[in-house]
C-alpha cells in the first residue's frame, strides 16, 4: 500500500495545525474589532462594518488569482522542459483559483447586501459590479475546465492558458471605478493615494485583511494537498486498470 511519512490527519501537518489555530484566533479578533471596537460611520452608520469583510475578500481574491496566474505561467514553462514537470504549479494554480472564487462570491454577496442599505438596490449593472461578476463566472469556467477528463499534463496546459487569459479581467475590475463613472465608490485604500478612511476604521480594515489572508492561506494549503491525494488515487486506479488489462492479455495468450 502506498504510504508516505505519516501524520495523524489526512491533509494536516504540525505547521498547518498551528496555521489553523492562528487563523481561528485572528478571525475571532477580527469579529471583535469589526463588530464591536470600530465605530459606526457618520454617514453609513452600522452598515460600514461590511467594509471589513467586503474589501479584504476582494483583495484576497485578487491575490489568489495572481497566484493562479504565476503558477500557471511557471507550469507552462516547466512542462515544456520535462514531460511531467511542474505539476505542483498546476495544483497550486487550481487550489488558489478555487479559494479566489469563494472570496469573489463573498465579495459579491456582501456587496449586494451593503448596496441595498446604501444605494437602495441589491444590484446595478455598473462597471465595477459587472466586471466583478464576469471575473467570478470566468474563474468558475476555469474550475469547470479543470474537471474535464484529460491527461493531467494536457489538462494542465489548457487550464494554465485559461488562467492567464482570465487574469486580464483582474486589473479591469480594480480600475473600473477610475476608468468609468460608476455607482461604486473609489478604492478605500490605494497606493499613492490618500486613504479614504482613517483611525480605528483604517487599522481594523488592515487587520481584517491580515486575518482573511491567514484563513485563505490555510484553505489553499489544504486544498493543494487534497488535489495531490486525488492525483495519487487516479494514478493508482490507472495502474490497477493497466495491470488488469495486462493480466487479461496474458490469459488470452
Amino acid at each position: 500500500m502506498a504510504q508516505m511519512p505519516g501524520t495523524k490527519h489526512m491533509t494536516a501537518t504540525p505547521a498547518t495545525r498551528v496555521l489553523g489555530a492562528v487563523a481561528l484566533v485572528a478571525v475571532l479578533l477580527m469579529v471583535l474589532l469589526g463588530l464591536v471596537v470600530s465605530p459606526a460611520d457618520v454617514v453609513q452608520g452600522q452598515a460600514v462594518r461590511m467594509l471589513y469583510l467586503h474589501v479584504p475578500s476582494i483583495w484576497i481574491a485578487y491575490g489568489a488569482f495572481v497566484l493562479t496566474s504565476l503558477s500557471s505561467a511557471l507550469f507552462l514553462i516547466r512542462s515544456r522542459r520535462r514531460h511531467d514537470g511542474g505539476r505542483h504549479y498546476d495544483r497550486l494554480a487550481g487550489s488558489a483559483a478555487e479559494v479566489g472564487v469563494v472570496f469573489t462570491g463573498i465579495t459579491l454577496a456582501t456587496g449586494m447586501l451593503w448596496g441595498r442599505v446604501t444605494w437602495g438596490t441589491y444590484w446595478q449593472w455598473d462597471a465595477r459590479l459587472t466586471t466583478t461578476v464576469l471575473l467570478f463566472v470566468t474563474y468558475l469556467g476555469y474550475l469547470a475546465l479543470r474537471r474535464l477528463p484529460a491527461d493531467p499534463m494536457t489538462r494542465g496546459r489548457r487550464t494554465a492558458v485559461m488562467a492567464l487569459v482570465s487574469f486580464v479581467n483582474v486589473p479591469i475590475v480594480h480600475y473600473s471605478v477610475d476608468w468609468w463613472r460608476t455607482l461604486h465608490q473609489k478604492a478605500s485604500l490605494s497606493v499613492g493615494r490618500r486613504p479614504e478612511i482613517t483611525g480605528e476604521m483604517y487599522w481594523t480594515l488592515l487587520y481584517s485583511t491580515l486575518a482573511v489572508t491567514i484563513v485563505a492561506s490555510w484553505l489553499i494549503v489544504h486544498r493543494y494537498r487534497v488535489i495531490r491525494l486525488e492525483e495519487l488515487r487516479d494514478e493508482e486506479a490507472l495502474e490497477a486498470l493497466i495491470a488488469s488489462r495486462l493480466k487479461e492479455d496474458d490469459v488470452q495468450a
Partner: protein
Amino acid sequence: MSEVTTVATGWGLSFIVVVTYALWIVGRGKTVGRELGIGGQEELDPGSDSSMPADS
C-alpha cells in the same frame, strides 16, 4: 432591511460559506485518503512532492 440586520446577514453568510468550504476540504481529504487505503491509520503528507509512494 435595517443596517444591523444587513451586517449580521453579511458576516453570518460569509462565515457559513468559509466554514462549509473548509469542512468540505477536510472531508474530501478524508474520503480520498480512505479510497487510497490510508484512512484512520497513520496518514500521508501529500504536500511532499519529492516523496514517492513506498511499500508499507
